[in-house]
């Protein structure tokens, strides 16, 4: 085998073949731990919130000027995820604008609204309210997990109902000759464009560093890595909650569980050793806010076909339905957060609980480990018996 073929094979394995979900789970946990050490735990909804705030500020509905999106850490990591997925799609020669039938846009719109409202109530999305919350040992993360599972079940029932009762719509693809001109070979250009954008992200990091904002630049860069990994593996939190009811498949449950176990173990070391403030990232309203927010969010993510993170990477590969979701998520999240704050309802949704404060460290750590191992075992048992599969 000559070198050129060998390089081509490596390229194919790295940037065109789908990565295993468990590997992606491990990588995401490691990047999330780096973000935690870098400044504070990883989240997503706060970035959407910032974008929504800006809209209302610009139409004069809010008085207070929000933080500039390029100075807001989570807005930056969200942008990084989107760009990382865009680069990954380009490298795989997969990027194109993907239209969807009308009904799908409606589901994307409503799904985004439900997720925006749910994330406001739970003070976090599937990442900040569940993934990071659990790893930060916040009791609310577990409450949201239960809500997400229940919401996913309801959302799936809706999708089944829709399939039986609403007419099926599709988008007919056009023959290639009509969409692509002869002089411009889009598939061939994509990897070069992808590499250029990737270099651009690194350059932006250096610019941040040059103006003494290295920490902010890091958020963009870490987000970029997460977007790359998520798109390469099509890593999807929704599937971890939906598939056990839908096909019985346990693949994504295992991947998310592996990821959480590494993430929470690492974070326990960091917190127990006081490398970061132990209660950092623990702000979730236990139990009402997390439970109800998770439930509403769970329905929304089934309708949209993407959670907070997979909405970003799916937008990055050109899915127009999820672009609608991104907009309504941001607008609703900002508005609902504002409403909860102004009305004082915020106070009634619950209180943040740091598990080691209640259970002590020596009990919290093995308990969480046992909890996630049981989740995997139940999912594997369900894969075999299909006991929870609804259709």
């Amino acid at each position, binding site marked *: 085998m000559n070198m050129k073929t060998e390089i081509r094979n490596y390229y194919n394995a790295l940037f065109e073949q*789908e990565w295993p979900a468990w590997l992606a789970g491990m990588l995401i946990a490691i990047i999330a731990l780096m973000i935690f050490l870098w400044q504070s735990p990883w989240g997503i909804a706060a970035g959407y919130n910032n974008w929504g705030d800006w809209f209302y500020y610009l139409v004069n509905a809010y008085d207070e000027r929000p933080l500039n999106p390029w100075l807001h850490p989570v807005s930056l990591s969200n942008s990084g995820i989107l760009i990382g997925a865009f680069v990954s799609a380009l490298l795989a020669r997969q990027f194109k604008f993907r239209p*969807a039938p009308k009904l*799908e846009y409606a589901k994307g719109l409503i799904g985004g609204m439900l997720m925006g409202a749910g994330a406001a109530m739970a003070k976090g999305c599937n990442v900040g309210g569940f993934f990071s919350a659990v790893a930060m040992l916040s009791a609310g993360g577990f409450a949201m997990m239960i809500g997400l599972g229940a919401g996913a079940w309801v959302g799936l029932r809706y999708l089944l109902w829709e399939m039986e009762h609403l007419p*099926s719509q*599709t988008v007919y693809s056009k*023959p*290639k000759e009509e969409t692509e001109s002869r002089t411009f070979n889009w598939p061939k250009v994509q990897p070069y464009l992808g590499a250029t954008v990737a270099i651009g992200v690194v350059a932006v990091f250096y610019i941040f560093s040059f103006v003494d904002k290295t920490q902010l630049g890091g958020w963009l860069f870490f987000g970029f890595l997460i977007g790359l990994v998520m798109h390469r593996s099509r890593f999807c939190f929704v599937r971890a909650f939906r598939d056990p009811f*839908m096909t019985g498949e346990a693949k994504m449950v295992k991947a998310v569980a592996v990821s959480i176990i590494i993430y929470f173990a690492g974070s326990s070391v960091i917190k127990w050793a006081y490398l970061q403030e132990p209660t950092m990232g623990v702000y979730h309203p236990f139990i009402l806010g997390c439970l109800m927010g998770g439930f509403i969010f769970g329905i929304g993510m089934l309708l949209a*076909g993407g959670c907070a993170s997979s909405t970003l990477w799916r937008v990055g590969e050109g*899915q127009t339905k999820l672009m609608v979701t991104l907009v309504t998520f941001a607008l609703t999240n900002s508005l609902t957060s504002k409403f909860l704050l102004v009305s004082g309802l915020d106070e009634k949704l619950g209180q943040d609980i740091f598990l080691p404060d209640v259970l002590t460290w020596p009990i919290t750590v093995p308990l969480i480990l046992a909890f996630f191992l049981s989740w995997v075992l139940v999912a594997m048992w369900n894969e075999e018996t299909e006991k929870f599969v609804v259709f």
Partner: protein
Amino acid sequence: MELENIQSDGVVDTRGLGCPMPLLKTKKALKGMASGEILEILGTDPGSKKDIPDFGNKGGNQFLGMVDVPEGHTRYFIKKG
């Protein structure tokens, strides 16, 4: 077997739909088919390229293969077990 020449017994069109609709529709269509019949699925979602083959080999069914066509979508074939 030449995929292009397969005579399918039913077709599910999921073009333009994203995860999880292609898989849901595939599962529903397979339920209504008899053993030995072949289901053809048309799709454009990049995620389907892994999901449909994985799912197609479950529960005694057999995934026969997939082929990208010039119109820009992919044709998948599953034989009901």
